[in-house]
């Protein structure tokens, strides 16, 4: 139980520092030393959700609860509008090296299932690359594809398809509990 609380506290501290510049490869170190010197692990009531993840990752009010990146038709590049969101997630991963993320790429339903699986993989890789460039470690990240198999919107028109051209980010805490 104690193990869980430390990342929860960390995440609270990070969110507090909203004016901190984007993390680079060395980011996170000062944060870690700060808690390291703290020596106290206070319990935050309601700090964990039912899956054992810090509320910060799942509370709808937190930016980190936003886990989906949408892609344009035939595109496998992260749009500029998602750069801030990915920066927030990268920052969290930098500050919480024990946390892991599964990135699931998705496509719309048109075409070959296996080819779509590979296209979804390209989307997941694009997200992974952004997070890595922002300081997340390779071993924290796994990019996989669900292809067209898990549509968020089961419809058969462009508005449904645009919801399904997507990458989702799932978290797993240091103790192995989480979303995958």
């Amino acid at each position, binding site marked *: 139980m104690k193990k869980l609380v430390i990342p929860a506290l960390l995440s609270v501290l990070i969110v507090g520092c909203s004016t901190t510049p984007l993390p680079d490869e060395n980011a996170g170190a000062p944060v870690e030393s700060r808690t390291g010197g703290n020596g106290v692990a206070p319990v935050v009531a309601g700090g964990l959700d039912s899956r054992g993840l810090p509320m910060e990752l799942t509370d709808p009010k937190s930016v980190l609860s936003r886990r989906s990146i949408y892609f344009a038709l035939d595109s496998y590049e992260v749009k500029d509008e998602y750069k801030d969101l990915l920066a927030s997630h990268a920052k969290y991963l930098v500050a919480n090296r024990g946390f892991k993320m*599964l990135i*699931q790429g998705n496509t719309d339903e*048109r*075409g*070959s*299932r*296996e*080819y779509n*699986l*590979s*296209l979804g*993989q*390209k989307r997941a*890789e694009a997200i992974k690359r952004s997070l890595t460039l922002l300081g997340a470690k390779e071993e924290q990240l*796994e*990019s*996989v*594809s*669900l*292809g067209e*198999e*898990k549509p968020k919107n089961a419809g058969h028109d462009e508005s449904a398809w645009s919801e399904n051209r997507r990458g989702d980010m*799932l978290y797993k805490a240091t103790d192995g509990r989480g979303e*995958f």
Partner: protein
Amino acid sequence: MHRISRRIFLTFALLTAALAEAQLSIEITGAGASRIPVAIADFSGDSTAARIVTTTVRTDLERSGLFALVDTAGVALNENSPINHDEWKLRGADALAAGSLGRSLDGRMEARFRLYDTQKGVMLGGKAFVTGNEQLRAAGHRIADEIYEKLTGEKGVFSTRIAYVVKSGGQFLLQIADADGQGAATALTSAEPIISPVWSPDGGKLAYVSFEKKKPVVYVHSIASGKRHIVANFKGSNSAPGWSPDGRRLAVVLSKDGRSQIYSVNADGSGLQRVTQSAGIDTEPRYGADGNIYFTSDRGGSPQIYRVSATGGDAQRVTFEGGYNVSPRPSPDGKTLAFITRREGRFQLAAMDLASRQIQVLTDSTKDESPSFAPNSRMILIATEMGGRGVLSAVSSDGRIKQRLSVAAGDVREPAWGPFSQ
């Protein structure tokens, strides 16, 4: 004896009714240009058993699209009945089959038949199959296979099986049925998707991709025992299994090095080797009879079909027409390549004659996917859509014969036609 067999049959019928929801129903939507007129006389012997065998043989032959059934006016014959060839010629039959359900010398149930060429007035052949009350349809399929082979010169596929995935009520069922859609049994039930099932060459196993671990992982599943093991679960995605002709290795697609690339691996998961090295996506590998692996790649800018030696090396591009050609399936006889092509926004089944490189689009549908050849290379099973529902369709490699297989409550997809039964 009679009463017992009837009771067994009744139990079987009730069981079948309970499973009816998940059963495939079949509908013929096109037939060959010239069909061989054939008469199948009612089989003699135990009336319930004989009726099942007779019906199975007739349905198989008619459904193949290559035969026209001649009305037999309820005539029951057995394999030893004297045949009046002129009478059957007058009825319009070029061939006649007559048989019975009886007992062998050691007391086992046997289905026997003889086949006659009524035009020449000669016997073409005959056989006896040991059977039982639960294998009557199987005996019928065997007899239909024999008749088919004698009259067309190629092996029949009525005794083969198919695998496919049913999505129903939020669950994914990997099912195996006889080629006519009967006798469906569920090999795997999962809350997560199952795709890309492929039969091992000996028909004993299926390889497939399951998402039960929140990511695509390749499994090999022994059908009789239900035992399964992971073949590829590397970091990233693992998908698109294709068996080598000897059943020892599988081509798979892994993204462990960043992009989807083709590897080959022993069926037990050992001995991983990389096959392709490209800057793009390489996927959907299938071993061809020519020793090459056919696959889909976007290395040239759009998804097209290529082939490469199974041990790797330089790939050759195979398709050039159009901007989207995927899911290559070389036919078992090595003559034809079936694939899915996108034409004006429609995804359609096409066949390429590998010698002449001529391409023929075989369907007029819009959402064809996942083609799979029958082991005799004559029919291609695909997934398509009818009225918003996923159905299977079998199309002859010349596009003339079409059959549709659907399930009452659910979407059917990802068909795989099994090998000849051994």
